[in-house]
């Protein structure tokens, strides 16, 4: 599988004062193959959203490189660059309430991309918008309404229609379903799956619902405090986690099955994700890790491939001293 997107050593720091930086994304490398869905999981504050946004150029990179079809994307996007890349790469935002302009109608919101990036006439654009509204499960007469008239689930689907109307190749979905009810989540997930098959979409699917990420994704990447701790095929990571953090994360995920919940031992860990300002040396998970060793406190582990696991297409990578 050829890489559609390749991220090399991406770094994004936010300056918050003299000598203080938020290490939102720290040296992350990840490749996403064509027509692949990569799920990115982690706690809030782990840098998942920043990674997605920096990847698309919505934040200026501190350092590192993003290759799209082998071609390096600009470090700092100029207006023209957005014009050039927007038809190929899109984003579905987390919060549908704040990512849709309340003063534009649904037709204007969804059709804006086509207006800017194509030569289609108003009439054709309108037809396309109606077509897309129907594809995401809305009705044609919704086109003249404003965002306040819709529920969260409907707004999220409007956000999806807006991102996909240009038929991009790569879409970053930032928690597209976490604000939705269970019954609507399934609608959105099935819609994305269907569109992936029909349009050949490649997705970076950011979420914290592990069961859903496992269901949706081909591969899963686990992020902790700005760096990747484990990458591998979604089922492999879910059922056989290697990194202590991944184990904790998956162990904390309640299953909708009372019998297995009763049998399960509690795997909770104490403490919370530390502040991403002034990160200490060594492994970032060391202060919460149940299997911490001396080396973890002063040497930062790097992502290494595990060779003894048989899944050659989707090799497992883990950043942990237990495996070095």
């Amino acid at each position: 599988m050829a890489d559609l997107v390749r991220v090399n050593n991406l770094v994004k720091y936010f300056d918050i004062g003299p000598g203080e930086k938020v290490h939102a994304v720290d040296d992350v490398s990840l490749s996403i193959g064509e027509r692949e869905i990569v799920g990115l999981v982690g706690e809030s504050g782990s840098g998942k959203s920043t990674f997605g946004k920096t990847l698309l150029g919505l934040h200026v990179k501190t350092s590192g490189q993003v290759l799209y079809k082998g071609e390096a994307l600009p470090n700092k996007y100029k207006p023209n660059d957005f014009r050039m890349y927007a038809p190929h790469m899109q984003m579905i935002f987390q919060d549908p309430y704040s990512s849709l302009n309340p003063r534009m109608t649904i037709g204007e919101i969804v059709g804006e991309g086509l207006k800017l990036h194509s030569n289609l006439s108003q009439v054709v654009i309108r037809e396309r918008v109606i077509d897309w509204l129907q594809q995401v499960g809305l009705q044609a007469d919704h086109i003249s309404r404003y965002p306040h008239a819709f529920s969260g689930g409907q707004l999220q689907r409007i956000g999806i229609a807006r991102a996909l109307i240009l038929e991009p190749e790569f879409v970053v979905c930032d928690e597209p379903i976490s604000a939705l009810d269970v019954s609507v989540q399934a609608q959105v997930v099935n819609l994305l799956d269907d569109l992936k098959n029909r349009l050949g979409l490649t997705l970076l699917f950011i979420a914290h619902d592990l069961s859903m990420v496992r269901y949706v994704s081909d591969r899963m990447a686990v992020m902790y405090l700005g760096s990747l701790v484990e990458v591998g095929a979604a089922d492999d990571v879910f059922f056989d986690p290697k990194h202590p953090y991944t184990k904790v994360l998956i162990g904390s995920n309640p299953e909708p099955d009372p019998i297995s919940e009763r049998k399960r031992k509690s795997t909770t860990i104490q403490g919370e994700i530390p502040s991403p300002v002034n990160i200490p040396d060594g492994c970032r998970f060391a202060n919460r890790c149940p299997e911490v060793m001396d080396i973890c406190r002063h040497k930062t582990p790097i992502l290494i491939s595990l060779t003894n696991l048989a899944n050659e297409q989707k090799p497992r990578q883990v950043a942990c001293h237990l495996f070095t």
Partner: protein
Amino acid sequence: MRRCVIVNNPPIQGQGPEQPILSVKDLAVEFDTYGGTVQAVRGVSFDVHAGQTLAIVGESGCGKSVTVQSIMGLIPMPPGRITSGSAIYRDTDILGRKTINGQDIRGDQIGMIFQDPMTSLNPTMNIGSQIAETLTVHRGHSKKQAFARAIELLEMSKIPEPEKRAKQYPFEFSGGMLQRAMIAMTIACEPAILIADEPTTALDVTIQAQILDLMVDLQQQNGMSIILITHDLGVVARMADHVLVMYAGQIVEQGSVDDIFYRSGHPYTLGLRAAMPTNAKEGNSALTPIDGSPPDLFQPPQGCGYCPRCPHAMQICQDQLPTLHELASPTDDANTLGHAARCWLHHEANTQTVEAIHRVHSVPNG
């Protein structure tokens, strides 16, 4: 999950241990809005038993929060209106009363934690004083005494460095820590019932697991009952003894947690389960969304609210509100609520065979 039951407040004379601690009957709540009157809750009855966890599940807008808010007297009136029903807590009807009767029960014997800890605490008061306030109001403690107790409570809620933390303000706490502080506040008076309205929805899974563990620990220590509102079936499976499934302002199915997960009796419960990914290793069966949306509660439908979305819908479902049909469950526990579903499929005269829905016997509503 059967847990040891230690009742800290001894049962009132004449009440056996099977007597529910809180009994809600036929609760109906309406709200006046510009668009008309919304019938948010339409005749809900349930019992809460000592030391047990009752989970209420359902989509947003199904009336689960309104149900518990009316028990807590948190419905703004107007525009809200409790049109019928009663909530008997230990021989006292606490529904809709803002008077003394309610006040020495709410916040004292029934405590509540909310979904969003960031907006539920007072940003201008330090955490310790907010917890202490409960004790000065309900227990008549002096401020100093109450603050010292607040520190103990923070420690019980597993907040590190409680002395230092008690003097800090909400903005200095993370979401998980705020939720712990809120739990500390709620358990200050050792309530018999803890109502938790989506307590972990805003939190990460690792923090969610910590908070749920804390709630179970506290329940085992002082034997309180928990009413847990959530839409996460994973959390239900983990926490609940009994489950109420709500849809369009009514209870559509109730029963023990095993009844709900392994012997679902209502198509909506089955629909919810089919819409979620299972964690089964083999095979990734496709998710089946529930098409359509819940009915408009300005004009509730004449028949079953789930009818337009239901794959098994019959003519009668459109015309007539289904009664609650009792379903036999294999475990006969004195403390079970009894498995029941509000669905015509369980009526004797139904000829449709639905494998997943098992019809045992039906009784009139009651």
